């Protein structure tokens, strides 16, 4: 399920209406390949509630993995643990670049994340948000990096505008630009298509596909069928904090995605 070149250029054109001639490829690829992540018997407890129950899975470098499952199944918790925003109550998490285990501190500079929230400051402009992020990641020439990152997401003309004046879709695009700013080796996306219109989702799907092709490891949670799933090479379904389906590294993710769409879609309809 790959996007054709025509479809991609068409969606870029739609996305760059405000940009006129400034269309560019939506990409910041990882320069030195993706990270391998190993979750071993990972358990996460919030008070009495178990959000994750003994999750063991290895995500190989360069894989694009979709986490599917209904609300509260543990997708976001797994992503937060991978981002080191929260520690597992039990179990182990390890990162590898090739065969070399990486210390947690070193991993942080190679992770980009689009969260459930936008992770953006409302009182800062789009450019200030990205420049601040670039500085925190110690990037060279942060202002230039920020301006460059705004172009592919179609926000260059709004660089000086405060984020609080942006629509939900524009915020999401800026949030994606922020996540890609430091050319991550591991990209964590929590329902990245939320708030994006169909063109935006197609653009995001194309961007994810290019990142995957460049070797970046991608772990994303999705809900229902959407345009961002085109690049997925593996799908994992979580239910009540446990992995119930895994298409595997060489399997066909579509079966799990379709199954999850039917099952979770049905549950959503019932609720």
């Amino acid at each position, binding site marked *: 399920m790959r996007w054709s070149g025509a479809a991609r250029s068409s969606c870029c054109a739609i996305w760059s209406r405000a940009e006129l001639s400034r269309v560019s490829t939506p990409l910041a690829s990882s320069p030195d390949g993706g990270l391998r992540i190993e979750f071993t018997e990972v358990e996460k407890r919030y008070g009495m509630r178990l959000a994750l129950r003994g999750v063991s899975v290895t995500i190989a470098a360069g894989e694009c993995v979709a986490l599917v499952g209904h609300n509260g199944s543990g997708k976001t918790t797994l992503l*937060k643990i991978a*981002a*080191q*925003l*929260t*520690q597992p109550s039990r179990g182990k998490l390890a990162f590898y670049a090739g065969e070399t285990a990486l210390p947690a*501190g*070193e991993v*942080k*500079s190679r*992770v980009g*994340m689009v*969260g*459930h*929230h*936008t*992770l*953006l*400051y*409302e*009182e*800062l402009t789009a450019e*200030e948000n990205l420049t*601040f*992020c670039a*500085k*925190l*990641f*110690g990037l060279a020439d942060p202002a230039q990096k920020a301006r460059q990152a705004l172009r592919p997401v179609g926000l260059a003309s709004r660089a000086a505008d405060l984020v609080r004046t942006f629509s939900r879709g524009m915020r999401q695009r800026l949030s994606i630009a*922020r996540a890609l700013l430091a050319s991550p080796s591991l990209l964590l996306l929590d329902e990245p298509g939320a708030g994006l219109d169909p063109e935006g989702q197609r653009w995001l799907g194309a961007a994810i596909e290019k990142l995957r092709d460049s070797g970046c490891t991608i772990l994303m949670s999705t809900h229902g069928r959407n345009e961002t799933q085109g690049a997925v090479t593996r799908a994992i379904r979580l239910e009540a904090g446990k992995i119930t389906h895994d298409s595997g590294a060489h399997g066909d993710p579509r079966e799990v995605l379709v199954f999850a769409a039917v099952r979770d879609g049905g549950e959503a309809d019932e609720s």
Partner: protein
Amino acid sequence: MTLARATGLILAKELRTEFRSRELLGTTVVFVLIVVVLFSFTFNPTSSESRRFGPGLLWLAFLFAGSLMLQSSFLREQTNDTLAALRLAPIDPFSILAGKMAANFLFLLLVEVILLPVFAVLYNVAILPVLGSLLLVFALGTIGLAATGTVFSAVAAQARLRELLLPLLLLPVLAPVLIASTEATVGVLRDPSELSLVWLTFLACFDVVFLTAAWMVGEYLLEE
């Protein structure tokens, strides 16, 4: 990235967002001015009376200012979960606390500097001859106020009854700083003025101990 550089970046961001929104400074300045003006109507302050009651009144106003300002230090990071954005960055977690402490210290000091001349006029106290000593006491006391307030703001921000929790946690811990700061201010405003080394040392020790504790537990404080 060094701790100092990361702290500087977060401090700059705090200053920029606050001076752009002016959410806190405006409200706090107005609030503490009202407190000081109202108290000046309750009695007709002579110079000697002001020297006795003034320091307590001043630090009470500073405490109110701190309560207003510190509460939102971490709450505003919850709007778009921007604290997660800071924690995702490859920086020392203490730099997040340190940047916010520095910003809170500057905001509080600014409020104090605005309040001081108003206090001097309304309460008939000559502050110019003792300005240096007074600012030294204010600085040491405000470091304690900002450091403890920022740490407990980080703790309270993740709790359900956060608005209630912060004063409950903060006031008992701040009591020694407030007592020491008030006593030191009494000494400075006394005639003849006297800068109490005992209270200054106490304040400096409190600041060092609390900053060290915050550095040691910073990572755990910010975790979900």
